[in-house]
Structures are given as C-alpha cells and as structure tokens.
C-alpha cells in the first residue's frame, strides 16, 4: 500500500490516519500553506508550519491548529512527518512523510526563486515526490525578479510624474507582500485595499515591510494621487476603483507571460512575477530530491508527467482539487 494515497477527500496517509491539504473536512489535516484551495475550512484539527498558524486563523476563523518549526519531526502512529520550506509564500511548506524507511514529499505549491519574504525552498531527498506543475510548460521561464521589481518602481515613478495613481494588483497572500517588500517608499506613499492590508498585518510580526495605509471611506482622491495602491485583482472594474480617481493599473502574475492573458486582463501594465516554480525550477527541484517516482497534481500535469517519463522518472498524474488550470481560477480569490 502506498504511504500516501489520493482519495475523494484529499491526500491520505492511512498509517497515520491524517490528510494532507484535504478539500473536505477531516479529523486531522496537515496543511502546506494558506491559499484557499489548500487550506480549507471544516477540519477538526490542523497542523501546519508556525508562520502559517496566524494565516490559517485569519482565513478560517477559530480553528484548532498547532504549529511546527521547519525541519521539526513529529510522529503520528509511527509515521514521521516534518515541514520543509517551499518558498511559495510565507509559512509555506513541503510536507515530508517517512515510514519504515520509505520517504514521500508533498510540495503543496513552491518556487525555487528567492522572494525576500518566504523562507527559501529546500530540496528534501525522497523516494516519491508529489509535485505541483502549475507552470509545467517550457515557455515559462522567469526572469530575475530583481528586474521585475525595478520595472515596477520605474512604472510607479513614471505614473507619479503624470499625477496618476498606480493601482498594483496581486494575490492577497504572498504576492501583495512580495510586491510591498520591494517597493521603493521614497517614491511615495503605499495605500492598501482591506484584503491586502489585513493579510499584511498578519505577517508583519514575522517580516519587515514598508509602511502602508488602509484606504477608508475618509481617504480622499487628493491623498492618493500619484501614490501606489495595493489590491487584489478582483477590484478591477469595481466601484471601489472608481473612487481612486485616475489610475494606471498593473498586475503581477506568472500568467502575464502570455500575451493573450495580458490582453484579456485589460490592465495597463503586466508584470511577469510568479510564486510558482517555472519549468526549469520544477525540473531542478525534482532532480535535487533524488526521487524515482513523481506524481503531478495540478497545472499542466499530463504534459509534464509525460516529459518526466521520457527523462527516466516514473511519473504519473493524480487528480486533485487544487486549482490552477487557468489564470482565471487564480483570480477568483
């Protein structure tokens, strides 16, 4: 029997009777990170990396949750578990499971690039590697993020010179903080939408960020003008945006590598910046584990698995409910 199996509720370890990132309520859930498709409501007890504890509480309300340090081993019914940095967002982990000498690693989501806020990805040797493959196509090859952050600051400064406000959009957990961390506060003030502000507040206890100011009913257009506003992409086209006055819109996502996606998003400026591993990142991560078996769970799973098989791995695909087939889904949050 495999150490981890794929069931209708999620990835299941029968020996320990625990689930990894289950999509239904279960007794005991080990959670890789705080994004809503991995951390779902309804389980009796959650175990996660300690930075992710306040994130989970913020997202899921009053839950029973215990936190572990990275690399700290804990045993459940003879199975040794541990969380290891996945570099995806603050508090994100790969989950390692070992039983009778057999080692499995489930990645959740990860990236191999350093983002300045998450603990950097560490390869974990294993026999079977359950990997995401959101950007498992060779067209995805990220450029140096430092250059992207430079582009963003230049864009902000140029907008400011035209007395235009910069509305910079990204995922509330991870992307917004990554953007914020690298903004140049000497250009101007940084305002936030509620969703961006609250998650950032949760993470301020772990990470130093530039100052932000929440936009409230009393905030005037004049105050915002020429400054930068961080918000989730869902605000695009809403009444909330109209109240900001004249804005230049920017959106940061790995999907922006596609011209079609850039044009469909209808933003003024697209930045290619992702919290997932690109093609080469995925391949190097797999190689570094020294694994024999690979299971691809979400993204371009079949294409990626087929390629891995050709390269000598024993790779297959398992259906999960982690969402990433399209950029649209990622935006639904």
């Amino acid at each position: 029997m495999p150490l981890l199996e794929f069931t209708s509720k999620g990835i299941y370890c029968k020996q320990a009777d625990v689930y990894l990132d289950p999509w239904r309520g279960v007794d005991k859930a080990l959670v890789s990170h705080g994004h809503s498709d991995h951390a779902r409501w309804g389980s009796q007890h959650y175990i996660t990396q300690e930075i992710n504890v306040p994130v989970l509480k913020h997202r899921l309300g009053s839950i029973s949750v215990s936190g572990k340090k990275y690399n700290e081993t804990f045993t459940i019914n003879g199975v040794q578990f541990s969380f290891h940095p996945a570099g995806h967002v603050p508090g994100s982990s790969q989950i390692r499971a070992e039983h009778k000498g057999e080692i499995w690693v489930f990645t959740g989501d990860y990236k191999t690039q350093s983002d300045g806020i998450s603990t950097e990805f560490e390869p974990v040797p294993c026999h079977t590697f359950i990997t995401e493959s959101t950007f498992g196509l060779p067209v995805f090859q990220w450029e140096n993020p430092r250059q992207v952050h430079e582009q963003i600051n230049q864009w902000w400064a140029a907008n400011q010179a035209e007395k235009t406000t910069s509305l910079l959009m990204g995922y509330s957990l991870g992307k917004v903080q990554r953007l914020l961390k690298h903004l140049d506060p000497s250009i101007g003030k940084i305002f936030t939408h509620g969703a961006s502000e609250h998650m950032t507040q949760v993470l301020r206890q772990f990470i130093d960020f530039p100052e932000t100011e929440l936009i409230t009913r009393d905030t005037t257009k004049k105050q915002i003008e020429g400054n930068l506003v961080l918000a989730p992409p869902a605000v695009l086209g809403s009444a909330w945006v109209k109240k900001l006055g004249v804005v230049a819109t920017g959106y940061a996502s790995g999907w922006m590598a596609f011209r079609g996606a850039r044009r469909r998003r209808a933003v003024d400026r697209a930045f290619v910046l992702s919290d997932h591993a690109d093609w080469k990142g995925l391949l190097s991560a797999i190689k570094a584990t020294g694994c024999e078996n690979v299971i691809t769970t979400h993204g371009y799973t079949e294409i990626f698995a087929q390629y891995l098989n050709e390269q000598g791995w024993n790779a297959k695909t398992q259906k999960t409910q982690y969402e990433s087939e399209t950029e649209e889904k990622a935006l639904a949050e």
Partner: protein
Amino acid sequence: MRRFAALIETLDATNKTNKKVEALSLYFQNTPKKDALWAVALLSHRRPSRPVTTTLMRTWAAELAALPEWLFEETYHIVGDLAETIALLIQKEGSGAPPSLSLCIENIIALKPKTEQEKKDYILNQWQNLNHFERFVFNKILTGGFRIGVSQKLMTRALSKAVAIDETILAHRLMGQWSPQTTTFDQLILHPNPEDQISQPYPFFLAHPVEDPFFNKENPQKWHVEHKWDGMRAQLILRKGKHFLWSRGEELITDKFPELEVLKNKLPEGTVIDGELIPFNENIIGNFQELQKRIGRKTVSQKLLKDIPIVLMAYDLLELDGLDLRPLPLSERQEKLTKLCQENCSPNLPLLQSKIYHFSDWEAVRAEREKADEKRSEGLMIKNKEAPYGVGRKKGSWWKWKSDPKNIDAVLTYAMRGHGRRTNLYTDYTFALWHKGALVTFAKAYSGLTDAEIKKLDQFIKQNTLDRFGPVRQVKPALVFEIAFEGIAPSSRHKSGIAVRFPRISRWRHDKKLEDANSLDDLKKLLP
C-alpha cells in the same frame, strides 16, 4: 526593428485608442521613411510572402530549445500563437543591435529562393540575437498575421497626424496593391502621381446595423431603400483601356471573374462602380455557397464559368468620365448610374443595377424586408439620399437592416482553444443536431457568449472532456445552445448536407435538455 518592436509592444499594452494613435504617430514622425513605409505596409496587412513553412519553423525551434517535438506542439497549442511560442521558448536576450525594419524585411524577402540550410542559419541566428519582443515581431513578419488591435483606420489616423495630410485622402492613397519594394514613402504617401494610379480603388464605404431609435427619428422620404445582396462586395474600375476588380479586402480579383472583362468595351473609360458580385444564372440569383466555389478556385475553368456565371449588381457610381463623384449626394450618383446602365447595358451583359425603392412609411419598408428570402437578399440597405460617399465604417448615412436570423437548438460536441486574447480558454465551439439517434455536426460558432458565460463554459469543457485531439477537446454532449444564422443552403461539402451562414450563439439554453435539441430534419425545413 528595435523601434518597431517597441511600438508594437506599446500598442499591445494599451486599450486606449488615443494612446495608440499617439504612439503610432510618434513612430511615423521619428522613423526613417523607408522603415515607416514598411510599418504602414505591415499594419495594413501587406507583408512579404512567407519564405519558410511554419512546419520548418516548428522543427527548428524545437531543436534550438532542445525539446521533443511533441512537447513543442503541446506547448504551441496552449500558447495558441506560433510566433509567441517561439519567442518564449528561445530565452536569449540579444546583445547586438538588430537590423532596421526595412533591412530585416529585405533579408526575409531575399531568403525565399535560398536553400533550406541557408534559411535555417539565418532564422536561427535572428532568434538568438533578438530580444524577446523583437523575436516575437520578427516571427510575426515571417508568418504573417499581425493582429494587434490596430485597425487600418486607426493607423491611417495616426499617419494623418504625422504627415499632416487629410485622413480620407490618405485612406485613398493607401488603397490597392502596393509594396515598399516598388514605391517609396514620398511616392505613395506624400506626393503621389495620379498617372501611376490607374488601378487604385476608392476606400469602400461601409454600413452600420440599424438601431431602433432610427425609425422613430427619421423621415422615410429622406432615405432610399434597396435589397442587401448576399454576395461579395467589389469595385470595378475602368480606366485607360484597362479594367480592375477589387474586393473589399483590397485584393485584386480581376482574374477570378473573367466574365466582367466585356464591360471594358461597353462602358466609357474613367468609370468606377461599387456593387456586389453575385451568382446569376438564367435570371435567378444564386446563393453564397455557389459564389464561394468561384472564389475558392485558383483557376476558373470554362465549366465553372458556365455553371456559376457571376454578375456585378451595381449600386453606386464613384467615378464617371474620370471625375470623382463621391462628394455628390447619393441621389445624383444614382441618377448617373441609372443613365449609365440604360445607355450601355444590354440583357446579356454581366451588369445589373440594384433596384431602388422609395417608401413613405417605415411599415412599408418592414414589409419589403419580409420579402428578403423571396428576393434572394439578406435584408435591406437604407441610405441617405443626400449623403456623399464616405470612407470606411462611418455612422449615419448608410444602414443595414438584415433579415431576422433563423434559429436552431444544437448540442455542444467539441471545443477548441481560442487565439490571441482568448488563448487558454475554450472559445471555439462545434455544434451538432440529432439525426437517427446520433449527433451530427452542423456548424461551428465562435461568438455570442458573454465573458462570464465563456468562463463558465470553459470550466465545463475542462471537466467534461471525453477525448483530446491537439487543441480540440471532445466534450460530453450535455449542453444545448440556440444557434442563430443568416443564410441556409444545401451543401455537399458538409457532413450534415447543409451549410449555414454566419452561425453564432444567440443564447445558452439552460432550460433545455440534451434530447430537446433540434434534429437535422428540423434544420432542413428552414431551407428556402
């Protein structure tokens, strides 16, 4: 090349028309004329002929990126655009300065007769020396098809700003077949010599669909009404002993319709007629499918000429005795057209004049529209009697009032990924009708759903895929859509035996079950 690629990137990044015009106009002002002329050519869909097949480009790109060909193909299907796929896969940032746009295109033209190895060397070299967006633009020039949200009209407006020449004059100068290889910016745009331009067509004037308030606002006596013929819009030019026939896409189609040559000797020189090419056999107007057979053939055989004779249904006169009549009111142009036809036409000539109707109330117009099927038209045209002949799609004086579409409820059976803006979404659909207990494909449709519906349908397709064939997914038959279409005719080329014109989705029939969809027999009942 660097400047042109930067221009395309700027145009690509904004939805605002003013910004596009501004960027284009700046480009035209600050670019050497030779390059600017090529830019005008590319943006008006005039491109050098393709020196290599896309198959070769795919093979070379896969090789350069060290990918198995199947992976390259899968990737290409997902990206949806070959030029972009290659640009993304070959991740090199060129260091040297790229050649100028005109030099780059001259190189591409010179490539055509060379050996495959020489072509490969050149293209691989370019791929590795250009930066990402330049590589994309270079591939677009190689493969053709610049769809970047810049219409010819927009480009003309920007050019007009840059060279300070009236937009309509420029639109005329840019018409017809020209190439930067044989003309210059000065000759074509700034100081054209009329003697060189005997083949040059006038820009076509286009109609808008009529809007409801029109009928309440307008007095029918100010308007003239004619049937809207379902053929191919064309402009016939007779100048200096020669004749030229142009399609609305500015293609010279003189050779495809040799039967019109006789008009050269029957009508006076210096005549330009705007009209519709339609199949016309033994006094019966044919359907669009027949015309398509004529358009589709490379060479026109005697048999085809006999089976599907074509006539020009004339409805406007743009030039007479070498004089541009476009500023005259429509009623005067019509008088001259009628006189021209009466004086020169005999029953056997391939020239008809579209009948003009005058009505005193809109109800009578509506009644005439009901006769569209009987008259073999696709509805009515309503034109302002006082209006001059305009340029392009300008609102106000020409309206089209098409017949109501026909409808049928069909089942979604296949879906394909979209292109361009819709890459990564399933937006191209195939629909089927019941026939003897099975579903038979009858039409493809691309438009008609809202963005929200497209997203929802995309999710359904991804979760209900039965099989995959490259970019196409076979979908579990479950959803019913109302498909609207204009014309319908028997066809031997279609599996269903029926061809419909302009099929599109009119609504998602959430209320209908799979078995409630219509049958092929229901569709056949709609045949005229």
